[in-house]
């Protein structure tokens, strides 16, 4: 029996068209036009106990909305979800006792106090006994290497330090299900890596189930075997991550800046031009020939700045669709 079962889960937001100006504000009081935005459209998936699943999609695709429904923060418009045996939005105590969420954009820590105080508060909220609390806290502080900051005012912590505190606060009660929404957003590379490693170890040691969203493919690639891709509220892909990363990594974007104006015709031979304004260009290049291609560009063109990047997730998704189409034929 899967620990997270999602079936036809749907969320619509009502909103009102708003025109600028006071006159319209008055008009809106009596006569507002109601519009509906379908944030999540009838999605279904199952997650087995102990899995780490990456939830990928461009901004506004419905990732966070789905996570919020699975946390019970918002109530879905339709469909069902069972997490650890409960409907999350019924907000049963037993559900909350075994559940946790970390959101990179939100904090549960009190800014004016040391993080330790929030831990104590959570100790009471989650009814953790003294010995258990001490054992867990010591373990987590050691793993995340934060013993020095635990008594420092949260306000004075760096983002990376604070994020680690968020993890401790979220894990003191040893949740069986853990949702992570952009847990590494805005972090420096070292903090990103520390948190990644921590998540992996935590999953292996405790066997907890983790659903993770991230902007960084790096996070997902290093943690998850399975990926669910959501785009415009529908699931575009659910399966092996390697399949996704192959597609994404198959094509790279080369961003170059030149010291002087370079004619378009000189660049075209290196690959498909995505953007061009004379002194800079974005070129799509096949991964296999990337090395040679880069070398050729650097050798023949007057380059000042050179970068190789992943293609945006949106594009990867459309690529995957194309590919899917090909294999079916």
């Amino acid at each position, binding site marked *: 029996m899967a620990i997270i079962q999602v079936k036809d889960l749907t969320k619509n937001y009502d909103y009102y068209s708003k025109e600028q100006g006071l006159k319209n504000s008055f008009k809106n009081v009596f006569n507002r036009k109601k519009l509906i935005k379908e944030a999540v459209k009838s999605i279904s998936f199952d997650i087995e106990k102990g899995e780490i699943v990456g939830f990928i999609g461009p901004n506004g695709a419905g990732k966070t909305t789905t996570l919020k429904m699975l946390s019970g923060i918002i109530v879905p418009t339709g469909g069902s979800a069972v997490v650890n045996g409960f409907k999350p939005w019924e907000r049963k105590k037993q559900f909350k006792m075994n559940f946790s969420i970390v959101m990179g954009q939100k904090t*549960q820590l009190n800014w*004016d106090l040391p993080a330790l105080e929030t831990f*104590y508060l959570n100790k009471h909220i989650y009814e953790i006994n003294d010995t258990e609390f001490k054992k867990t806290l010591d373990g987590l502080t050691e793993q995340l290497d934060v013993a020095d900051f635990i008594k420092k005012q949260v306000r004075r912590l760096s983002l990376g330090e604070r994020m680690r505190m968020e993890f401790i606060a979220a894990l003191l009660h040893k949740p069986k299900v853990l949702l992570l929404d952009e847990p590494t957003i805005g972090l420096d590379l070292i903090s990103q890596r520390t948190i990644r490693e921590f998540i992996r170890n935590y999953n292996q040691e405790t066997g907890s189930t983790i659903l993770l969203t991230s902007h960084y493919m790096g996070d997902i690639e290093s943690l998850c075997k399975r990926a669910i891709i959501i785009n415009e509220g529908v699931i575009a892909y659910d399966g092996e991550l390697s399949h996704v990363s192959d597609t994404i990594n198959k094509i790279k974007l080369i961003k170059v800046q030149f010291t002087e104006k370079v004619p378009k015709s000189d660049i075209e031979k290196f690959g498909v031009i995505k953007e061009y304004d004379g002194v800079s260009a974005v070129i799509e290049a096949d991964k296999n020939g990337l090395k040679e291609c880069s070398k050729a560009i650097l050798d023949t063109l007057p380059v000042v700045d050179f970068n190789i990047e992943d293609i945006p997730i949106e594009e990867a998704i459309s690529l995957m669709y194309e590919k899917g189409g090909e294999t079916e034929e």
Partner: protein
Amino acid sequence: MFTEIKKHFKIYGHFLKYSIMEQLEYRANFILGIIVECTWLCTKLLYVFITQSTGALVGGYTPDEIMLYVGVFMILTALYVGLFSWNFYFFSWGVSRGELDMIMVKPVSLQFFMTTRYINISVPIPNIIGGTALIVIAWGRIGLEASIRNILFFILFLFGGMVVTYALFLIPHLSAFWTIKTQGITEISSRMWDFNNMPMQIYNKWWQRLGVFFIPVFVITNFPVMALFNNMSLLHLIWGFAVPAVMFIGIRLFWKVAISKYSSAGG
């Protein structure tokens, strides 16, 4: 049930501790808060001063009885501002910024957490001191010999007044679940508090009925004082016990409706 209550009491203890720690962190604000509140206190004292100097009966109260009444009003103001009003203000702000998310997922009452977590220490200090002084002085001058029963009722109705305050003044803030701009509504509702500055008997019958039975703002300060002076009608007595229960159940139900509208703004 009992363990849940015990747990919430423990958590409240932590809230108190954190509030004190936070306020000591911003000492200048703390002192300024006291000073500003003192000026407000003086305006309340003016009402006492006027009744004392004219010697007129106001709504059937002698000047000394008015003094006692204003004293009780100050104590209730201290409780309202100290325990609730800051939370209520932060609340609508928090809803509009989607700050309930992280609390909603915890095994603790969201309403309890959101409406009681901050306890203001500075503002109540002048009110408690001033209010107690007025009550003690007035009590002596009236030569009040209240029976145990009356004092008991006084305390019960004071507590009831607190419950009514909590429910009545939280309602407008819950509008934050429907609309972002709550400032005007909450501002007006908070000014309603001043209706307790003078006994309700100064208003005519219809206003009194409105303020007792429909929007029970008069109940808050009037009932404890009336109990102390032993001049409550049977209807008022029954209502005095019923209204806190009615309001509390009402706010619970309204809360549940409101929270289902929560859309968790801010991504």
